[in-house]
């Protein structure tokens, strides 16, 4: 049975009509057209579908859309403010941390949540933080560099 959900996505209050069994990933991609959130495994092990919920990383493929009403949902599309890229986005671009780009949205959002918690991390802490976001292209090296290079600049 469909029901009206009130979601706050990227700062915008939305009302949508969806069935209860829809995951947040499905609603973002299929109902809201926010395809920046990627479906890599659909079983919560690759991290490509990571979004921020109240500032923390969540796997949207294992989250019911109905269960996140009243929370602030940020997807990769909502990260840049007033057309200005988030420092992590710029850093990923400049450091060559993006190849095929499929892991990038989840990776950047995970990194954002992590840096807000630990603004000056060690390399080992960065590795652990992103270890649930799989990447087959980069070998993670430039991703780690990109995250370390903005650490401390997060406010």
């Amino acid at each position, binding site marked *: *049975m469909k029901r009206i959900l009130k979601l706050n996505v990227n700062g915008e209050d939305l009302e949508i009509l969806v069935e209860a069994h829809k995951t947040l990933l499905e609603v973002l991609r299929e109902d809201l057209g926010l395809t920046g959130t990627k479906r890599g495994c659909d079983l919560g092990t690759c991290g490509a579908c*990571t979004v921020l919920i109240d500032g923390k990383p*969540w796997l949207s493929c294992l989250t019911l859309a*109905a269960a996140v009403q009243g929370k602030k949902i940020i997807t990769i599309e909502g990260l840049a403010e007033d057309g200005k890229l988030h420092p992590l986005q710029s850093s990923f671009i400049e450091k060559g941390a993006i190849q095929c780009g499929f892991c990038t949205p989840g990776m950047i959002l995970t990194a954002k949540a992590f840096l807000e918690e630990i603004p000056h991390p060690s390399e080992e802490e960065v590795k*652990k933080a992103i270890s649930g976001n799989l990447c087959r292209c980069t070998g993670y090296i430039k991703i780690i560099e990109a995250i370390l290079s903005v650490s401390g600049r997060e406010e």
Partner: protein
Amino acid sequence: MRLPKFEYIEPKSLREAVKILSAHPSETSLLAGGTDLLVNMKYGVVKPTTLINLRSIPKLNYILEEKETLRIGSLTSLHDLYTSPLIQEKFPILSQAAREVGAFAHQVMGTIGGNLCQGNRCRFYNQSPFWRSVRPPCFKAGGEICHVIKKTKECHSTYCGDMAPALIALGARVKVIGPQGERIFPLKRLYTQNGKKPLSLRKGEILKEILLSQSSGKSIYLKWRWRGSIEFPIVSLALYIEKEDNKISLSRVVFSGVGEGPLEISEIEKSLLGSTLEGSIIDSVSEQVTKLVSPMRTSIYSPAYKRKMAGILLREGLDKLK
């Protein structure tokens, strides 16, 4: 992979949740973090017609110190648990174990209660409908056979949680709420060691909180897996030791990944009693434990390898707590 259809309910209180759950316990599932349940639902091995979202209930997320007892609300996330200065200071083993669950997002989503109640795992069970269509359904999936041990009459799926061994090693108790009210019992007794129905919760019961008494011993959690993230333990060990006059006066040795539930090995605990951990005792119990655990081939790792690793982990743990 889509979730099957279900009725979705957001109760306002535990009492309300208990009432709904009691009505149709076999067709109702409780949703906490969702990292275990929703995967099983996508795989079609758990098919609730009603899903109760416990996160809608206020005030189940807490870590409170009251006199001698620490109370952890069952909806406390693993992330909140290991970032809590109180936990880090008084029960570092919990912080350690919680950091080893899945990865960052799983720790944010996953709750302590959900983790304790996570389903047993088996290579024949945690698979898609297509994968499982190669064989008839197993006991756990509602069938009449165990593919791990064909002759057996029961399910041998394996408990693979990280938090239960650590909490059992600390002697934790749990409070559950049900239609008859609340009851408190040792966490160890939450587990039946029955693969098909691994939890001893009675009809309509919900895990409400975890209770810990302050303790004086040393503890460690060792999780063995091949990659440093994501994976469940191949074998893991939680070890707790109290000493008096440099001799072990109390120990708890609890494994995950080797049995149908978290496994406390009382034979080893007896062997350790009174020991200073000097001499050959570590060698002998590490050898002994490989014969006391009897893991099944429920993953891609062989039982012999799991037994061997149980011994290696025990040796490492005892060396570290020496």
